[in-house]
């Protein structure tokens, strides 16, 4: 059993936001128009959080891509009344869209507010539905959704591995954001495998987890920029 995790090196991240765009394309996150966007109804699974603190002349900037951190002790999985979100065999926090009743308790329980809710029917203007990724369902209105670490890629990779009669190898399964990151700032792999780069990098002295004090044990590790203290 692997324990999938990610390392995001904020020292290398250029903040271009390619991860977010790749995520939208990979996971059939529909485009929104201005009105929907202003009403806070965008459903991006991965967003670039950027905070400017202090005054101009000593402004400190904190900026990082934020997606579901797939906590080992996920607050959202406990509170779901129907078990539509839960930690699967390999520790990924799964969301089962067709069981979700849309009570939005999990979205409120998540301290990172990374879960999103389908307020409206997804809009795919004529023709655009042709770029939908057939490996991912188009979530209906009224259910909660979130980053799955591109779990469908895991399903396909695993399927291929079985078909070829072998075990899952390193690099068989990589989320879209990690795959395209032009700066190579994102690393994905098995945290339990001491040989994997991700487990090595997660021991880096720059490593920190978001809101560690909450004890949610996120499986996404950030490396803070060079020369910056927490």
């Amino acid at each position, binding site marked *: 059993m692997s324990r999938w995790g990610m390392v995001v090196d904020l020292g290398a991240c250029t903040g271009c936001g390619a991860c977010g765009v790749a995520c939208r394309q990979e996971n059939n996150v529909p485009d929104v128009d201005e009105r929907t966007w202003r*009403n*806070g*109804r*965008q*459903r991006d699974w991965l*967003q*670039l*959080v*950027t905070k400017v603190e202090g005054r101009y002349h000593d402004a400190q900037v904190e900026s990082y891509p*934020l997606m579901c951190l797939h906590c080992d002790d996920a*607050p959202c999985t*406990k*509170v*779901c*009344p*129907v*078990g*539509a979100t839960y930690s699967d065999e390999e520790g990924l926090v799964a969301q089962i869209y067709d*069981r*979700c*009743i*849309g*009570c*939005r*308790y999990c*979205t*409120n*329980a998540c*301290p*990172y*507010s990374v879960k*999103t*809710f*389908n*307020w*409206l*029917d997804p809009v795919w203007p004529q023709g655009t539905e042709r770029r939908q990724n057939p490996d991912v369902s188009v979530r209906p*209105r*009224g*259910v*909660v959704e979130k980053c799955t670490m591109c779990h469908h890629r895991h399903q396909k990779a695993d399927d291929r591995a079985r078909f070829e009669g072998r075990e899952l190898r390193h690099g068989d399964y990589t989320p879209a954001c990690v795959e395209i990151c032009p700066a190579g700032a994102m690393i994905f792999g098995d945290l339990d495998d001491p040989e994997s780069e991700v487990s090595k990098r997660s021991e880096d002295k720059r490593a920190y987890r*978001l*809101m560690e004090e*909450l004890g*949610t044990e996120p499986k996404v590790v950030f490396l803070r920029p060079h020369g910056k203290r927490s």
Partner: protein
Amino acid sequence: MSPSHTTMSTSPMTMSTSQPQPTAPAAEMTVHERKIFAHITTTGVGFKVLYVIFAAVAAWALAAWIWQIVHGLGVTGMNRPVYWGIYITNFVFFIGISHAGTLISAILRLSMAEWRRSITRMAEVITVLVIAFGAGNIIVDLGRPERLLNIILHPNFRSPLLWDVCSISVYLIGSATYLFLPMLPDLVRLERHIGGWRRPLYRALRMGYRDTPEQREKLEGFIARLAVIVIPIAVSVHTVISWIFAMTIQPMWHSTIFGPYFVCGAIFSGIAAILTFMVVLRKAFHLEEYLLPVHFDYLGRLLMVMTLFWLYFTFAEHWTTWYGNEPDEMAVFRSKVTGEFAPLFWTMVGACFVVPFTLLSRKAWRCNPTIMLIVSISINIGMYLERYTIIVPTLVNPRVFITPPHYQPSWVEWSILAGCFAGFLLCYMTFAKLFPLISVWEVEEGIERGAQEGAARVRGYFPSVSEPAARLEPGTDGGVQPREAGGMGQPAAKRGPRLPAREET
């Protein structure tokens, strides 16, 4: 044999005749029956007008809900990350109100506060109706209401929401029973006295209960036991509701005192709700003789106590937060105390403490229905704001977010809010057209018992010099020792309405 039994003995006789006789019922109605049943049979213009208005509002809300079902929750003002808003506030608020009846009447019944007799019924009705509306708001809030059954098919018992579903459904059943059982004797009377299309309903509802002494005795036993059971359920319900929030690790939700805090607030708003209804019904249905200053006075005292409790809890909750000065918590705290929610927050403090505390301070005021109306309504507004300022600010100040979130309820939410109140009142009015809002038999029983039982009690409070004759009436309420009745019952007996004893026919 005490007179009460002789009076009761008449009923089985009449009951024994299977077919109800179509003779003019008024002839054989007792005074109380006549006075109380009046509001069932006679309907004023004002009533009709209000009824139509409420019906209209409710219909509008229904339309709004259908609109929401068609277009999705996108028609509400909720957004990311403010995932909960008016609906959940309604839910918490209504369930809070529901503590009116059951708790009050159950506690008072157990403590043998005789003065309760004329208000228990109207309180219990509030309870039952309001639970339904509270639970309904949850369904309205669901993204996919058609999957509601998943809660039963695939339950996850780690979820406070599921605990809630359990406790609320138990509570609903419990309080419905608790409303129904004490109504049986009255149903018998109703069937006897009120004819027309209602009679089959009464017959069906009484389910063969004939109000024979034995039945009555059993019934009272049941009621007493139920009263004992209902109280812990009621407490549990609101504790669990508070846990929906307290079990998360969100700033200003993750609080240990939320359980008692919510229960206290629930009882608080519950009493206020009863008071509102008492004042209104008293005027509307001319029940001045039954809802007397003393009732207002006592409830006022209770209310005063709860006000102080509420203040204490609110203070404790916010003081610890402020002192701890934890950044995330402070963000919420500030937005409540000085930020965008400050107006609501301070209105709440005013409405829940300042107004009631001042107006309840003098007995003359406590006994004045109009003032009590003001107090109770102000408290209910305040409590609604409390629920709102507990739920929304936390969501509007998440730990991490990109843009400053905002929440502005949409017309759909407002309509459904209005519709909930309208619908609730509508149901209440309908109830008033079918059943007495004051428990006749309890009142009569109270009057008949009142005098000598009061005397007995007074004797009971002091070392017994003579033979302990009337220590315990056979067949008094649930065999409770008068000693435990406390001072509450006593004045009831003294100041209880002085009415001509019932004339035999």
